[in-house]
């Protein structure tokens, strides 16, 4: 067994084909006719550009534009004036043959990139070597290995796959990919995920361990490669693979299906995101909205405040991509557990009870106004809702709404468009907000329950502290009563009540939330389809009795045991 890094989930079983790049023999020669040699190089560049374009177009058709971009960027690198200039120089001044000149210059760049302390830059070394080999093959008239012709049931084993080779892979024939080099963000990994081929990268010594024709199991979820496994092991994996594929397939049926219970109650299943590009995954799993967009990423790991434009672009991008579906954007939720010097945030003695989130924002209106203005401007491009975190008293919500009103007047004066009816809601995550939910429901446009913090604040427990973590349970009757109270108050006032904590996708929690009347469930994108499946199998009427029984227990343990038994 060889251990590596799982780069693309799933299990693949097949026969090994070791892809070995034929070692090119590059002879160093002194050429007599320099002009002819320079011309040879120019012609090879033209062929290279044409080949790359054709490969990229095929890839775009079969896989996607993002993958094709990898190849187009190689073409761009090969046209780089420094690179072509250095190669021409080597030809003209050292009278080198083109093959040797390309070898020398490309290796130099590849070594520079490989020595950099940055994974993205190290990828460029792979690109550089790929470009070099392809140009040399063109010069020497060597045909590329035809990966597209691999037989069905193949597992590809290689030192590393170049983008030009991966581009030719057909998912129906290739059961798995294992490379000795590479990382989770390497071309191989990105492509394997796009093609949904199980893959393990950084599998040390894999080339020494296998030969052509061996049977291997590639466990891309665990990062394992099993070589010539016993029949019983193989059978075990075959059944695991079948279950995995069956479940995946079964869940795919739920793409495009409405999230409606058996008795016709419709809820919304949304995704939580941390960066604008995470939206792609939400849409891939058919999320009906974004229930929580954490905006902290814009402010972290930098030395100065993000500009209004920068924020505006990020919010706008999400709003446009979601194309009219709701996007709940949580305003800055940052505080004394992290030091952020440029914002004047230092470590708080008691950070979770201290100067953070809305408390910080209302104190630093210079910062908050910029974010609110960016959000308002972005609201012209989609269905954006503003969510205020860590609210404890109604004055805070009123103050935020007053700020928004002022900004609206300012935008009106400048004739900047925005959504005049932009909903402003609160994240219910403190005991105070929960107890006062009926009051908040009159002035907030929606609620979203943040169960992680609500549990922490209700139970007065730091879940990161192992000695008290046993107290942390969302199934504790105190937390459940709080959740039920918030949902009831919101529903009575006729506003939407959502949940954006981990509990929203917990199979044991979903029946209770449906019975309480929750409208929106927001979770990590990959949990959306399994949650939809569950929701369509329940009837909220039938769940009432279950919820009543669950609420009658005195301890978290009893509730958990009961719900566990129920879902089984």
């Amino acid at each position: 067994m060889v251990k590596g890094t799982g780069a693309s989930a799933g299990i693949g079983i097949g026969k090994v084909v070791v892809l070995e790049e034929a070692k090119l023999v590059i002879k160093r020669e002194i050429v007599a006719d320099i002009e002819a040699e320079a011309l040879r190089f120019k012609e090879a560049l033209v062929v290279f550009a044409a080949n790359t374009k054709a490969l990229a177009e095929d890839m775009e058709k079969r896989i996607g534009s993002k993958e094709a971009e990898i190849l187009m960027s190689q073409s761009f690198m090969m046209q780089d004036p420094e690179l072509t200039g250095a190669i021409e120089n080597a030809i003209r001044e050292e009278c080198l043959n083109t093959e040797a000149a390309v070898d020398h210059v490309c290796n130099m760049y590849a070594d520079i990139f490989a020595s950099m302390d940055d994974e993205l830059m190290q990828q460029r070394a792979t690109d550089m070597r790929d470009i070099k080999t392809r140009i040399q093959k063109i010069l020497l008239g060597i045909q590329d290995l035809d990966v597209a012709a691999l037989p069905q049931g193949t597992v590809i084993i290689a030192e590393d796959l170049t983008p030009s080779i991966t581009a030719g892979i057909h998912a129906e024939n290739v059961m798995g990919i294992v490379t000795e080099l590479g990382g989770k963000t390497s071309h191989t990994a990105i492509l394997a995920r796009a093609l949904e081929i199980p893959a393990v990268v950084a599998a040390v010594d894999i080339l020494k361990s296998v030969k052509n024709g061996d049977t291997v199991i590639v466990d891309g979820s665990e990062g394992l490669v099993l070589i010539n496994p016993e029949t019983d092991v193989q059978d075990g994996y075959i059944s695991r693979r079948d279950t995995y594929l069956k479940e995946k397939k079964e869940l795919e049926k739920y793409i495009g299906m409405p999230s409606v219970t058996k008795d016709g109650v419709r809820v919304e299943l949304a995704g939580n995101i941390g960066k604008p590009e995470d939206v792609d995954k939400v849409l891939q799993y058919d999320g009906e909205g974004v229930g929580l967009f954490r905006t902290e990423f814009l402010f972290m790991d930098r030395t100065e405040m993000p500009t209004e434009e920068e924020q505006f672009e990020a919010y706008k991008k999400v709003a446009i991509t979601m194309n009219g579906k709701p996007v709940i954007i949580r305003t800055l939720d940052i505080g004394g557990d992290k030091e952020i010097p440029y914002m004047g945030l230092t470590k708080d003695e008691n950070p979770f009870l201290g100067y953070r989130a809305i408390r910080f924002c209302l104190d630093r209106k210079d910062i908050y106004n910029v974010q609110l203005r960016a959000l308002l401007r972005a609201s012209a491009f989609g269905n954006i809702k503003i969510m205020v975190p860590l609210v404890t008293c109604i004055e805070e919500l009123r103050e935020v709404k007053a700020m928004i009103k002022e900004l609206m007047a300012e935008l009106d004066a400048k004739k900047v468009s925005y959504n005049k009816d932009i909903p402003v809601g609160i994240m219910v995550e403190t005991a105070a907000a929960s107890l006062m939910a009926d009051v908040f429901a009159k002035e907030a446009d929606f609620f979203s329950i943040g169960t992680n913090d609500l549990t922490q604040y209700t139970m007065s427990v730091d879940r990161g502290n192992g000695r008290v973590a046993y107290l942390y349970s969302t199934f504790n009757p105190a937390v459940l009563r709080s959740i039920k109270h918030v949902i009831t108050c919101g529903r009575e006032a006729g506003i939407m009540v959502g949940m954006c904590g981990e509990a929203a996708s917990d199979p044991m929690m979903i029946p209770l939330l449906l019975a309480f009347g929750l409208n929106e469930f927001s979770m990590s994108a990959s949990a959306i389809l399994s949650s939809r499946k569950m929701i369509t199998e329940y009837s909220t009427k039938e769940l009432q009795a279950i919820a009543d029984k669950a609420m009658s227990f005195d301890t978290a343990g009893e509730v958990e045991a009961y719900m566990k038994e129920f879902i089984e």
Partner: protein
Amino acid sequence: MVSQKIIIKNPTGLHLRPAGILCKEAMQFKSIITFQFKNTTANAKSVLSVLGACVKCGDEIEFICEGSDEETALCTIIQAVENGLGE
């Protein structure tokens, strides 16, 4: 010769995509466009040279333009970097 300092805000620094966009912008001008970072000088018209400088998020670099269209070139480049180079 004109020059201006600017902080790179792209989350992963000047990696392939933003570097490519920077080069495309620089190519439109006749001026020689370079930037200084730490002790190296990089040619803004060369992706490899830009990548080779290994500029990370938050780093400050100084663009230097020299040539007949240096003023417009500097202005355009600074604007492009401020706009996040396509990110």
